């Protein structure tokens, strides 16, 4: 079963490999579109009030990560997000949304502040990845990312994450350890950029589109994998065509998630968050003979089926079905064919 890579007969696949690559790549380009509304633009449209705060108190203020207080339909919250620029000048100042370590340390500071003030956190994810240069390494970008991830996993206040554009690897995850993870329809989420994967696995950046398909980085596929919980549909033609409508849709979903998390007992909240990440991914238990036996038969197949449904949805432009925020893998396993 694990070896099987042909599409099974029950799934609906409407694309040839070429069409699929083109469709997936179009999503990648949408996610990277410079005209796409970025964090500050979105927060300003979503919230009735925004007070931006600056600096990590250690080194400097990183313009590639923004954060502060905001009020969403009366709900007070702390927001943190990656910030790209819309114009070349701003993009250079924002380092194209690629944070240095101080950006993540600012985020940690704001997370801690939210915890102390008992305010929920909303994070917005849109980065090609953390900045990979010497300045970044010297100041410990890996440590900053690891620390941010660890702080989020144990933060005693609710966290709602929205992937709005590019979810690029560890630099994205460092702000994305939410209790609930939403994603805009044309956003992408991946362990490495398609270009990076292509140059390592295919030894040529020309295979970026192949890598993009192989990594299943579209929002619909990430939903099927359980990495994100809900896809928020974008206006016709993409978020940049109507940023206000995009913000309106996000506001509704963020507010709903904040409300459902607000009443949770803190320990239950932390346990659920721990379990959410604890259960990510599947493995098999090898028998004595050395032949692999799936630990929970059917799970891999289930994911495949869901993924294939994601494929169909992706080409058709329809976003995936919203996932119950509390739904976990065991829950889904009980109704394997739903949503397919």
């Amino acid at each position, binding site marked *: 079963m694990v070896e099987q890579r042909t599409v099974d007969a029950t799934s609906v696949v409407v694309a040839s490999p070429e069409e699929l690559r083109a469709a997936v790549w179009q999503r990648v380009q949408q996610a990277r579109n410079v005209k796409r509304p970025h964090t500050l633009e979105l927060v300003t449209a979503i919230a009735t009030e925004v007070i931006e705060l600056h600096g990590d108190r250690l080194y400097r203020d990183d313009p590639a990560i923004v954060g502060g207080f905001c009020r969403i339909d009366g709900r007070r919250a702390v927001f943190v997000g990656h910030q790209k620029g819309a114009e070349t000048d701003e993009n250079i100042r924002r380092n194209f949304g690629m944070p240095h370590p101080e950006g993540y340390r600012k985020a940690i500071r704001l997370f801690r502040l939210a915890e102390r003030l008992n305010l929920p956190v909303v994070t917005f994810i849109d980065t090609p990845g953390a900045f*990979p240069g010497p300045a*970044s390494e010297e100041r*410990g970008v890996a440590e900053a990312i690891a620390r941010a991830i*660890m702080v989020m996993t144990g933060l005693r206040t609710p966290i709602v994450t929205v992937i709005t554009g590019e979810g690029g690897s560890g630099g994205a*995850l460092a702000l994305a350890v939410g209790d609930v993870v939403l994603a805009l329809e044309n956003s992408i989420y991946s362990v490495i950029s398609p270009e990076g994967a292509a140059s390592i696995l295919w030894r040529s950046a020309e295979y970026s589109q192949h890598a993009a398909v192989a*990594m299943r980085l579209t929002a619909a596929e990430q939903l099927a994998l359980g990495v994100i919980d809900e896809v928020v549909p974008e206006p016709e033609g993409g978020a940049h065509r109507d940023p206000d409508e995009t913000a309106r849709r996000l506001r509704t979903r963020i507010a709903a998630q904040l409300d459902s998390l607000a009443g949770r007992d803190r320990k239950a909240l932390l346990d659920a*968050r*721990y379990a959410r990440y604890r259960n990510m991914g599947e493995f098999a238990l090898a028998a004595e003979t050395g032949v692999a036996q*799936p630990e929970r038969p059917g799970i891999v197949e289930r994911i495949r089926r869901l993924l294939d449904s994601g494929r169909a949805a992706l080409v058709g432009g329809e976003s995936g079905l919203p996932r119950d925020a509390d739904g976990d893998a065991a829950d889904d396993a009980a109704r394997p064919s739903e949503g397919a």
Partner: protein
Amino acid sequence: MPSFKLPFGRARQDYPPNLWTKCPDCGEMLYNKQLDKNQRVCARCGHHFRLRVDARIAQLLDRDSFREQDANLESVDMLGFVDQKPYPERLEAARATTGIRDAAVWGPGTIAGTRVVACVMDFAFMGGSMGTVVGEKVTRAGEHALEERLPLIVVASSGGARMQEGTLSLMQLAKTCAALGRLGEGGVPFISVLTDPTTGGVFASFAALGDVNIAEPKALIGFAGARVAAGTIAEELPEGFQRAEFLYEHGFVDLVVPRARLRETILGLLRYMRPSAHVERAGLNGSSPLGRSPQFLDALIRREPAHG
């Protein structure tokens, strides 16, 4: 560092590769048996070769004290990932050449009689990359250490997250960091040993978070691959960039320790790094108001096992 070549000797080309290994640093031909006896450190220049997991365990832990757990965990191809080869074929090839089922091994053991939980990575298995199985083993090691209140030692050797498992590999960063967060809150110490290479998502998660971080000399340790860094930015990379000594200088590694002294160094640290009593630790945890709440203390005292 290659300095100069002596004008005589060493001209022969007929070193059988099963008997001799060439040092990539100084070019010396090293007799394999001698190299193994020297813990795979070049006798001439001190270059540290990568250690396989069994050799590392033999080096660090008391003889026959290690009890491997979960040796039967096996990666599955969740994405149907095909690059130049399908992922299951790569896994199969790696299993055949390395004799282990994935890139990490964990279990309890002792160091000079002191009980610890150890997790050791093996670069020989798909570049030590972290997929679900590696993440699971690191996490289980952390959870076991918390449950048994034993110090955790993780020896990293990895290129980073395993691309073939996509974002599910990325999620292992969160999974392992979450377990380490609980370990720290529970007052159980964690020593991270960074060996050549420790990069990408492994460095950007559990490996960077040791209460004490130890690196082997000249080990490559960094976030982005040096080529990625050089490609993204048109800057000259500094000398010794991303080497253990560079991280030491910049404050991200406590100690750079030659392999021959690693075991005794860890042993020395363990004398100070003992798991604290629960309540005492919780009382000190003042970073948040809830840290002192009765529920939180209760949770600690009851020693609730983490989710499995």
